[in-house]
């Protein structure tokens, strides 16, 4: 389980997160939702240590990540897989080399073993015959899938996805959502997804954290969300006509 306790984060004096606390449960898909600019990405980056928190702590299975230095964080970092908004694939490396990259850096596997693992991960995200292609030669949806393959190559305990559906068509979005859900169940990962896509919430929302004005405004399950009486939550969740009709 990942526990976020009372974290604050400010940039140039402007508070982006204020006293945020929440838990991300093991083996579940945990969603961070909220409008753009409310602090979702900052919360995720504070959780994984890309931003240092000003106050508060983050615990990965009772290990205080916030108080660790670069060296102490390394073992935990190797248990984390992250899918970035734009994929963040290394442009100079092929798809195969991208997925193999963490294996090259942190394992003593032979080339044959690494290739087997790469092919397994690519097959797992339904990608075939793309090993030798470069990121510039594949579509946005394929880039996201390669990023997921790279993230799972080291068998992570924690999987973070920052807006995995942004820029994708609805059909591909569902494919990506299902893939993340399947991987969470299959590998028992603690998955944290940052999204403002309500389809993803419907598809995968087991545990939902609603961030509003830099605060943890509401927390609960999808069923609780449907019957929530919080004004800000309802304004966001039921903003579209589709969702309003669904509620009726």
């Amino acid at each position, binding site marked *: 389980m990942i526990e976020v306790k009372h974290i604050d984060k400010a940039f140039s004096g402007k508070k982006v997160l204020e006293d945020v606390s929440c838990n991300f449960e093991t083996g579940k898909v945990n969603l961070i939702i909220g409008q753009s600019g409310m602090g979702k990405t900052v919360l995720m980056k504070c959780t994984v240590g*890309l931003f240092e928190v000003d106050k508060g702590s983050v615990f990965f299975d009772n290990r205080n990540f916030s108080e660790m230095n670069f060296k102490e*964080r390394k073992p935990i*970092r190797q248990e984390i897989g992250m899918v970035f908004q*734009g994929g963040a694939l290394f*442009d100079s490396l092929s798809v195969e080399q991208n997925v193999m990259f963490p294996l090259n850096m942190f394992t003593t596997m032979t080339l044959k073993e690494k290739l087997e693992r790469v092919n397994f991960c690519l097959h797992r995200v339904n990608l075939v015959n793309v090993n030798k292609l470069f990121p510039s030669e594949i579509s946005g949806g394929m880039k996201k899938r390669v990023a997921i393959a790279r993230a799972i190559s080291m068998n992570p305990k924690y999987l973070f996805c920052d807006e995995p559906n942004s820029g994708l068509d609805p059909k591909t979005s569902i494919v990506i959502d299902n893939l993340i859900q399947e991987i969470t169940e299959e590998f028992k990962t603690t998955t944290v997804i940052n999204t403002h896509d309500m389809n993803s919430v419907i598809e995968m929302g087991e545990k939902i954290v609603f961030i509003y004005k830099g605060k943890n405004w509401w927390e609960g399950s999808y069923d609780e969300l449907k019957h929530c009486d919080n004004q800000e939550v309802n304004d966001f969740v039921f903003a579209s006509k589709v969702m309003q009709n669904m509620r009726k």
Partner: protein
Amino acid sequence: MLSRTWFEIGRYWLFMKSLFIKPEKFIVYYRQVMHELVSIGVGAVGIVALTSVFMGAVITIQSAYNLINPLVPIYAVGIVARDSIILEFSPTIIMMVLAGKVGSSIASEIGTMRVTEQIDALEIMGINSSGYLTLPKIIAAMIILPFVVLLSMFLGIIGGWLAGDLSGTVPSPDYIHGLQDQFLPFNIVFAMIKTVVFSYIITSVSAYHGFYTEGGALEVGQSSTRAVVYSSVLILIFDYILTQLILA
């Protein structure tokens, strides 16, 4: 303005310190160094060769033009061309040309990796991103650029010889006599010391500016420009310091 300068200097030294954390895997760094040797060294040969031949030719013809005096022997043109090329033109001017070519390339490469979250992806994996991206470039430049400068010296002298002989201003025997007269081998050593220092400046300053790029494509361009300007100014300052320390 002054506080910003101190901030940049302090951050540069912290950046330098971060390069020397123990690498995750030496073999990966070794491969990166080999890759950079080709990228930095071989990639620079064309522009260096072209610049050197023509600058050698211009130095010879201008020296001949300025030394029309019955009291000055014609072979003095060879001495002037040799010393100008070895002491100043190849190690300083060529390195400033390389600050434009290699420096901007490093800054834009690392800057693009920053704005597309590729550096965040490295850090999430637990990799010392500054060391992984910068140290191989610094090592490779300090190894290969002295050879590039030696090539520049050779081509500059050849260019001068061809220009002097073909234009009839400095006959070959006089030029060759001038090249050999009062030759100090230490001048080559001095040029190599300068080249190694300038190689370090170009790669570290450019990588620093790329690494701390914030924003998008526009800021990548600005970082690249800043890298070239700062590298060039530092080359001029250190050229004076090294000349004063070693030759004065």
